[in-house]
């Protein structure tokens, strides 16, 4: 067994590795190395924890570590890239429940020891259980929505806000009872133990309630927020056992999650509280938008091919529909043929396209699209006038010009990719039905827009085969 000083030095080393790893993870050319460095940091921290005290019954530790590693390895290698949002949501939830369980086990430990508890440790315990439980149940709901097990539409009912406030009040009260019951034996309303289970139950329910009212297209915000929570829960667990490395790394994750969350909110021009509590996408409040006039103009694949063949500058704008149709490989094939044909090809990625931050980038990377061909919204908008053809694949709200032009639209003010300013715009879509939230999209009726109806993957394959038979 190592003396505490050495253990703490190892924790310092682990923290440094986490910090370096995260720094490198935020740059494309060094990201893989950064992930490796942070993994080494984790290994150092785990070894340090195992060398802290004599382990009399190692079978328990081995069981936990072995089972976790096995499931983790299988999950990491089996998952399809299109299912990445579900997996990230699930992992967030596991982080949350681990912190919750640590809090629970420590609570039992406190009950058995004769030592008087510090107020800070108790407060941290309440935070770890509360945040851990909300993260866990919220992530499970998010996972269910992303995997299509429960409907992606926001579930709203009368008095939902009232119920949420009631739950929150109950959680605070239960937390207070835990504090009061543990600190003074003369407190009689509820034992600390009962209050503990009350807090756990209410928090789990609260996590469900919060996420269930959020629509599928808002998932990028929810996932990054839950990511942040899993860090804060780990941080709270660190305060229970006064462990520095938990506090440092939990806080790092918490902060990075908050940054991502705010990037996502900005990309939708909405505040966090609006995303969480408005039930946006239920169709409510969209009555003020002006009705779009005009007719959409369909185009056949054959005609689309002729236009593309003559194009010198093509921009692809993918959205969640590309993920659903699994069309990323077909997109890449078409892009290659266009390049061989002498055209400049770029991909314009909206920050909230898809169901998690960076969703489109991962899918296109899987299809071997080099990342310097992926342009961010601010990069592409100033030059989109130069594009001969903008091809929208399964994206809707992120290319909606109503966000610029129609103050009555629910998404007015949201930054969008201005595909309507390209010379021609192809929209690959299954049918004319409005996308999420039923927001009208005047793009479909513009003079320079042509609708290419059908499954995105099939339409693309058709175009590819036309290029090939030429």
């Amino acid at each position, binding site marked *: 067994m190592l003396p505490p000083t050495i253990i703490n030095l190892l924790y310092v080393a682990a923290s440094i590795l*986490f*910090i370096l*790893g995260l*720094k490198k*993870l935020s740059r*494309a*050319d060094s*990201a*893989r190395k950064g*992930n*490796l460095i*942070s*993994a080494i940091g*984790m290994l150092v921290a*785990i070894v340090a924890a*195992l060398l*802290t005290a004599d*382990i009399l*019954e190692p079978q*328990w530790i081995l069981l*936990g570590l072995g*089972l*976790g590693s096995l499931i*983790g*390895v299988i*999950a990491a290698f089996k*998952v399809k890239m299109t299912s*990445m949002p579900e997996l*990230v949501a699930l*992992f967030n939830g*596991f*982080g949350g429940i*681990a*912190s919750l369980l640590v809090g629970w*086990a420590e609570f*039992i*430990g406190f009950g*058995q020891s004769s030592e008087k508890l510090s107020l800070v440790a108790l407060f941290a315990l309440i935070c770890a259980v509360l945040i851990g439980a909300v993260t866990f149940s919220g992530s499970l709901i998010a996972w269910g929505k992303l995997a299509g097990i429960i409907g992606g539409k926001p579930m709203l009912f009368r008095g939902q806000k009232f119920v949420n406030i009631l739950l929150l009040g109950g959680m605070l009260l239960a937390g207070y009872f835990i504090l009061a019951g543990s600190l003074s034996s003369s407190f009689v309303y509820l034992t600390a133990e009962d209050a503990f289970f009350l807090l756990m139950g209410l928090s789990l329910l609260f996590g469900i309630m919060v996420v269930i009212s959020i629509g599928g297209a808002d998932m990028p915000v929810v996932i990054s927020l839950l*990511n942040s929570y899993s860090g804060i*829960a780990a941080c709270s667990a*660190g305060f229970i*056992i*006064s462990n*520095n490395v*938990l*506090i*440092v*790394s939990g806080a*790092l*994750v918490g*902060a990075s*999650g908050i940054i991502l969350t705010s990037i996502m909110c900005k990309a939708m021009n909405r505040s966090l509280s609006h995303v969480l509590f408005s039930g946006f996408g239920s169709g409510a409040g969209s009555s003020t938008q002006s009705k779009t006039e005009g007719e959409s103009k369909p185009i056949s694949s054959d005609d689309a091919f002729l236009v593309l063949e003559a194009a010198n500058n093509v921009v692809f704008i993918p959205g969640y529909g590309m993920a659903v149709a699994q069309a990323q490989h077909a997109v890449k094939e078409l892009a290659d043929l266009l390049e061989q044909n002498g055209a400049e090809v770029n991909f314009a990625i909206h*920050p909230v396209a898809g169901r*998690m931050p*960076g969703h489109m*980038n*991962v899918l296109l*990377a899987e299809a071997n699209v080099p990342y*310097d*061909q992926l342009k961010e919204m601010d990069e592409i908008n100033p030059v989109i006038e130069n594009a001969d053809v903008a091809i929208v694949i399964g994206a809707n709200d992120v290319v909606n010009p109503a966000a610029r032009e129609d103050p009555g639209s629910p998404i007015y003010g949201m930054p969008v990719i201005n595909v309507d300013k390209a010379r021609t715009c192809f929209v690959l879509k299954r049918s004319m039905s409005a996308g999420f939230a039923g927001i009208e999209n005047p793009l479909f009726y513009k003079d320079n827009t042509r609708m290419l109806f059908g499954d995105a993957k099939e339409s693309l394959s058709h175009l590819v085969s036309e290029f090939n038979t030429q």
Partner: protein
Amino acid sequence: MEAILLLFILVLSIFLGFELISKVPSTLHTPLMSGSNAISGITVVGALLTTIAASNCNDSDLRVILGVLAVAFATINVVGGYLVTDRMLRMFKKKEPKK
């Protein structure tokens, strides 16, 4: 005084976190999220410490079981998180120079 010291560390870490990743290209949003999620599996350290303490003093079986479960969940988070992040990052390639 220890609590204040821990709070001090917390505040500094939060600021450090904001500084470290204030500018992330959107290409890396998903790997950053799953990579930082793997870091949040650091709870595994807390889970290990509580399980060791519980199994050594052997007072409560429930506490040991909770500890083992916590270790298992946190390990899934750590192992799965790092591996899947690496799998994603392996796919990110720069454009090869044209011949």
